C-alpha cells in the first residue's frame, strides 16, 4: 500500500487511492490484476468502488455555468505594467537544492556537537583524578605563613588583609586625612584590627583567589604602604589631634605590614624604621615601598601571569556555532523558497 512521507495513512484512504487510480486507468498491469482479484472476492470493496464511481460521475455531470459577461481586456488594462510581485522569485527554483543543503548542514552540526560533547565528557573523566593531588598539594599553602608556598597565594592573603583594614579605615577616614593614602590602600586602625584577625582571614583567601588575582597589582602596592598611589598628594602634617591617631596608625601599620611582608616572603625591613614615632608618613611609605618593590615586582609579574586570559573559543565550539547558524539560515531560505515556488 502507498505511504506518504513514511507515515501510515488510514486504511480507507489507501483503499480510496487504489480505487481512484483504477477508475482513471492509472494502475500498472500487476496492480490492476491484483485489485480485480480482490474486487471479485470482496463485496464491500466492490460497493466502495461503485460509490466512488458514482461520485465521479456526478461531478463530471455537473452542468456548465454561463459567463456573466465577457472578460476581454481593455487596452488600458492590458497596457498596465506587470506588477513586480508577480515575478517568480529566483530562489523558488532552488528549493530542492536548499532542502538538501539544509539537511547536510544540520547533519554536520549534530555530528560536531555530539563529538564535542563526547570529547568533553572524556576530558572531564580524565582530569578528575588529577584534581585531588593538586588540591592536596595546595593544602599546605593555606597555612598562614611565614614561609609562603607561592607568591600567588601570598598575594591573596595580603589582599584579604588589606580588605579587612579597608573597612576599618573607611570609618575613620573623615578624621584622619592621610592624604597620600588612597582609598584602596588603607592604614589599619590598630584598635579595631586585631592581629589575630589576620591568620583566619588567610583561610578565606583561598575562596577569593580568582577575584584577587585581578587586583594583585594594586594589592602589592598597597602592601608597600600605599604611598605611591597618589604620589602627587603629599602627606599633610597632621594636626595634633589627628597626629595622635596617625601615630597609632603608624604603630599598627607595621603589624599588618609585617604580616604582609612575611606573607610575601620579604625580609622584614627594620621595623624601627617604620615604627619610629615621628617619622613622616611619606618616608615610611617610601621605605616600605622599596622593600616591597622586589616582591611586588615579582608579584606583578606573577599577577600578569595570573591575570585572567580572555576566553578563547575552542575551535570545535566555533565550528558548532557556525554550523548551527548556517543550518538555521538555510532552513529559513528553504521554507521561503518552497512557499515562493508554491505561488
Amino acid at each position, binding site marked *: 500500500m502507498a505511504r506518504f512521507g513514511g507515515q501510515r495513512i488510514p486504511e480507507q484512504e489507501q483503499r480510496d487511492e487504489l480505487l481512484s487510480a483504477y477508475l482513471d486507468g492509472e494502475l500498472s498491469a500487476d496492480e490492476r490484476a491484483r485489485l480485480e482479484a480482490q474486487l471479485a472476492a470482496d463485496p464491500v470493496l466492490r*460497493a466502495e468502488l461503485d*460509490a466512488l464511481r458514482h*461520485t465521479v460521475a456526478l461531478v463530471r455531470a455537473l452542468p456548465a*455555468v*454561463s459567463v*456573466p459577461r465577457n472578460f*476581454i*481586456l*481593455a487596452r488600458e488594462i492590458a497596457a498596465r505594467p506587470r506588477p513586480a510581485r508577480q515575478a517568480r522569485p529566483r530562489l523558488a527554483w532552488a528549493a530542492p537544492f536548499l532542502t538538501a543543503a539544509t539537511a547536510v548542514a544540520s547533519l554536520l552540526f549534530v555530528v560536531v556537537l555530539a563529538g564535542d560533547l563526547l570529547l568533553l565528557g572524556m576530558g572531564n573523566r580524565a582530569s578528575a583524578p588529577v584534581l585531588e593531588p593538586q588540591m592536596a598539594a595546595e593544602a599546605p599553602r593555606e597555612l598562614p605563613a611565614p614561609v609562603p608556598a607561592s607568591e600567588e597565594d601570598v598575594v591573596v592573603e595580603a589582599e584579604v588583609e588589606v580588605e579587612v583594614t579597608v573597612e576599618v579605615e573607611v570609618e575613620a577616614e573623615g578624621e584622619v586625612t592621610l592624604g597620600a593614602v588612597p582609598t584602596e590602600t588603607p592604614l589599619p586602625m590598630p584598635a579595631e584590627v586585631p592581629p589575630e584577625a589576620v591568620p583566619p582571614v588567610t583561610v578565606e583567601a583561598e575562596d577569593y583567589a580568582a577575584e584577587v588575582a585581578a587586583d594583585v597589582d594594586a594589592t602589592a602596592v598597597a602592601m608597600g604602604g600605599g604611598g605611591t598611589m597618589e604620589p602627587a598628594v603629599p602627606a599633610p602634617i597632621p594636626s595634633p589631634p589627628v597626629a595622635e591617631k596617625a601615630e597609632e596608625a603608624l604603630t599598627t601599620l607595621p603589624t599588618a605590614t609585617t604580616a604582609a611582608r612575611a606573607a610575601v616572603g620579604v625580609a622584614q625591613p627594620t621595623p624601627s624604621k617604620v615604627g619610629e614615632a615621628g617619622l613622616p608618613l611619606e618616608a615610611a611609605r617610601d621605605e616600605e615601598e622599596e622593600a616591597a618593590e622586589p616582591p611586588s615586582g615579582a608579584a606583578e609579574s606573577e599577577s600578569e601571569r595570573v591575570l585572567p586570559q580572555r576566553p578563547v573559543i575552542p575551535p570545535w565550539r566555533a565550528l558548532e556555532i557556525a554550523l548551527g547558524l548556517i543550518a538555521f539560515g538555510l532552513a529559513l531560505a528553504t521554507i521561503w523558497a518552497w512557499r515562493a515556488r508554491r505561488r
Partner: protein
Amino acid sequence: MIGLVWRVIRADMLDSRPAAYVVSCLCTMDEESLIAAAQQGKVEAFNELVLTYQQQVYNLAYRIMGDPASAADATQDAFISAFQSIGRFRGGSFKSYLMRIVSNRCYDELRRRKRRPATSFEDFGAVDEEANPVLTNGHERPEEYAERQEMSRVIQAGIETLPPDQRITLVLSDVQGLSYQEIAEAMDVSLGTVKSRLARARGKLRDYLRSQGELLPARYRLEPRVAEY
C-alpha cells in the same frame, strides 16, 4: 485558414459605462498565431483567446470559489495576469497555461480568506441560480431541470467542504477533464501528489454525498455503505 471577421464590440461589455460602440477588426487565426501575436503585445489577438477559453476558465473559478462574484474576479485577474506573462509561455497546452493561472489565483484567494475571514462563506449565500443560470440542454423537462439544479447545489456544497488543494485537483480532473500530467503541471506538483489529492477529494465527497442521501434526488443517491448494515 485565415479569414477576416468584423465584430462590433460594445464598450459597455468592457465596463459599466453607457455604450460607446467600438469597431474593431479581428482576424480569426489559429491558436499558435494568436499566441504569437499576443506575445508581441497585440491585445486584440489575446482577446480572441479570451473569448475561446473564458467559459472554461470561469467554470473552473466558479466551482472552486463557489460564488459568481468571486469567480468573475478570479477570472478577470487570471486573464490580465496571463496576458502580462504571456511572454514566458513556451508552447504546449494554452488551456493548461490558463488553468494554472486561474487555479493559483483561486488558491491564493482561498488561503487569504482562511487567514483573514472578513466574511464567512455563508454571507455569500447559496448559489443564486437566477443570476447564474445553469445551461440547459434544451430537451429536459422542467422537473428534470429542477432536479439537476438541486443535485448541482448539493455537489457544489460538498466540493466546498474540501481543502483548497484537494478542491482544485478534483475540479481540474472531474470538471475540466485534465489529465494527471496536466494537473501536475498546472499545480506544479508531482504525479503522486495529484493521485493522492484526487483520491482523498473523491473519497471525502463520496462520504459527504452519502450523508446527504435524503437531499439528493432518488436516481442520484449513492448506495449506503455495506458495512453499515
